């Protein structure tokens, strides 16, 4: 500091992440992206309607606890997302608080998590479109047809993503609006058919704490990836406001719809219609209304695939621009799309179904075990982000008591959900989540060691965020003009 004045901060002329379509995504589109990843209609029409039968009395407590935990995590991530903007989301948040090694492990976990989620969207969409065909009276298609449909959906995803972020988020908005409308129609039909729920559904008489906690853990796993909108921060308008708001709003939308569905399901928990995907015509093979519903739900899953694919491409783009992965992944096209990273997501997304096929599954599907194991890994990444908050805020000299209590609460909740998910199998601990977590940790550590040997300077740049540019700041006049003021 000279003459009693602090040295002025240095602002760049160009962003490290230059090339993406900046400020193209408005608040509504960003919320739609986040909602699409949560697939609220799918969750409500499946787990939501079935939850009262699964948990019994106190099912509504499970809903409040499950979405409450996601809300607490959203408040933790809000502390990062309102301070800086980064396409790496959780990976960058962890890097700021816990350093490069843990961040790289979280980065590997995110690649796995979003890759599996994209594959789940593609295969789930194909399954529902096939089921829609059967619901119209068609013959059950052969196994190879499923792969053809997945191929068509991959092409559709690529077309939508390549047209730019504005197009893909707007497509998600349209699809999710239709799917929420469908959910509303089905819930109305059920209310007409079975009647309104009475106040007795809120009774806790005979409730089992164990089942309530298990139900809450199940619901919490449905909210995994709620933070996906943070990856679009570079492309969002006023991201430091829009990203935290989108996380909260999407959880409120998904939680509200899920809660209503559980209340409707409590009147007549008709598991047969849920399991056979016949919400309109229970027990009937052919139902055009259910076929239409399945088409909408199939498209909703394709929207999930598009959004997960987009998030993963931004993560790979971010790695490349930070210099810790092949630089070609940072290349963007005229629409501001990281085009090479987008193509590189394809094998990651299809890895799950291909492995399942190699193990003997005829239809393309992401195995349930893999999906559950990936959920556990994502929960661990949330725990890392919660742990990172306190050192991050301390480094900024902005730590307050309330911001210490929040991550502690989130950590306890995430720990409980992870334990429930790992020990879900009767007779002990599931091996796949533990093995997968070990594999992720080994890969992350290996990456850290390789970077330390080959590119030690790059390690310091891990967790780069979008810095304000000269154009974003009011630079004071030259020192000689302002000397009198000081």
């Amino acid at each position, binding site marked *: 500091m000279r003459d009693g*004045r*602090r*040295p*002025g*901060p*240095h*602002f*760049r002329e160009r962003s490290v992440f230059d090339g993406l379509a900046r400020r193209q995504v408005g608040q509504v589109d960003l919320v739609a992206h986040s909602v699409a990843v949560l697939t609220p209609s799918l969750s409500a029409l499946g787990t939501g309607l079935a939850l009262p039968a699964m948990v019994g009395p106190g099912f509504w407590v499970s809903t409040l606890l499950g979405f409450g935990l996601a809300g607490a995590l959203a408040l933790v991530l809000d502390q990062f997302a*309102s*301070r*800086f903007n980064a396409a790496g989301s959780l990976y960058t948040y962890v890097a700021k608080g816990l350093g490069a090694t843990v961040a790289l492990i979280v980065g590997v976990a995110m690649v796995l998590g979003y890759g599996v989620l994209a594959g789940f969207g593609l295969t789930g969409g194909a399954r529902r479109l096939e089921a829609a065909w059967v619901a119209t009276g068609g013959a059950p298609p052969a196994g190879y047809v499923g792969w053809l449909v997945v191929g068509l959906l991959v092409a559709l995803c690529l077309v939508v993503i390549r047209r730019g972020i504005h197009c893909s988020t707007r497509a998600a908005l349209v699809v999710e609006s239709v799917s929420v409308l469908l959910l509303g129609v089905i819930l109305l039909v059920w209310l007409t058919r079975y009647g309104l729920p009475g106040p007795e559904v809120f009774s806790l008489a005979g409730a089992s704490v164990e089942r309530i906690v298990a139900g809450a853990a199940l619901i919490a796993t449905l909210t995994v990836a709620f933070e996906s909108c943070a990856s679009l921060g570079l492309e969002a308008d*006023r991201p*430091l*406001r829009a990203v*935290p708001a989108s996380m909260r709003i999407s959880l409120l939308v998904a939680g509200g719809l899920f809660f209503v569905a559980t209340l409707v399901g409590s009147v007549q928990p008709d598991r047969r219609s849920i399991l056979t995907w016949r919400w309109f015509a229970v027990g009937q093979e052919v139902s055009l209304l259910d076929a239409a519903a399945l088409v909408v739900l199939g498209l909703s899953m394709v929207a999930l695939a598009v959004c997960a694919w987009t998030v993963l491409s931004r993560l790979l783009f971010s790695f490349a621009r930070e210099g810790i992965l092949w630089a070609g992944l940072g290349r963007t096209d005229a629409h501001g799309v990281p085009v090479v990273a987008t193509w590189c997501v394809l094998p990651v997304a299809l890895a799950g179904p291909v492995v399942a096929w190699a193990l003997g599954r005829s239809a393309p599907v992401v195995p349930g075990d893999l999906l559950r194991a990936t959920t556990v890994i994502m929960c661990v990444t949330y725990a890392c982000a919660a742990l990172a908050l306190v050192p991050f805020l301390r*480094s*900024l*000299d*902005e730590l*307050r008591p309330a911001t210490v209590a929040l991550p502690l609460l989130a950590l306890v909740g995430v720990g409980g959900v992870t334990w429930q998910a790992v020990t879900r199998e009767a007779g002990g601990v599931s091996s796949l989540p533990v093995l997968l977590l070990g594999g992720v940790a080994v890969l992350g550590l290996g990456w850290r060691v390789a970077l330390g040997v080959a590119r030690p300077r790059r390690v310091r740049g891990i967790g780069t*965020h979008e*810095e*304000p540019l000269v*154009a*974003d*700041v*009011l*630079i*004071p006049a030259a020192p000689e003009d302002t000397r009198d003021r000081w």
Partner: protein
Amino acid sequence: MTAGDADDGFLARQPAAVDSAFAVLEAVAELGPGVTTRELVDVLPMSRATVYRILKHLVAQEYLVRTPDLRGFALGARVRALGAAAADRPDPVVRAVSFGLTFP
């Protein structure tokens, strides 16, 4: 914010949050780019929690930006846009204000 502002009843007629927000903006402008939260808490007559809350809101609205190390603050593009809009207006009163002139 000056004593004169309070004397002419300006504070009494305005919502306190708006006054606080302008006070924070003026403090950042006076202390210069890079001013930290702690420095703002020291100079502003408001609680630490209020300063945090207002800083968060002004950063979200892009009236302020965080410096690249995230520890400090500077005036953002929207303040610049306000200044530019005032400077570009042909209205002589606006131009006079933008050049720092005052009227009786």
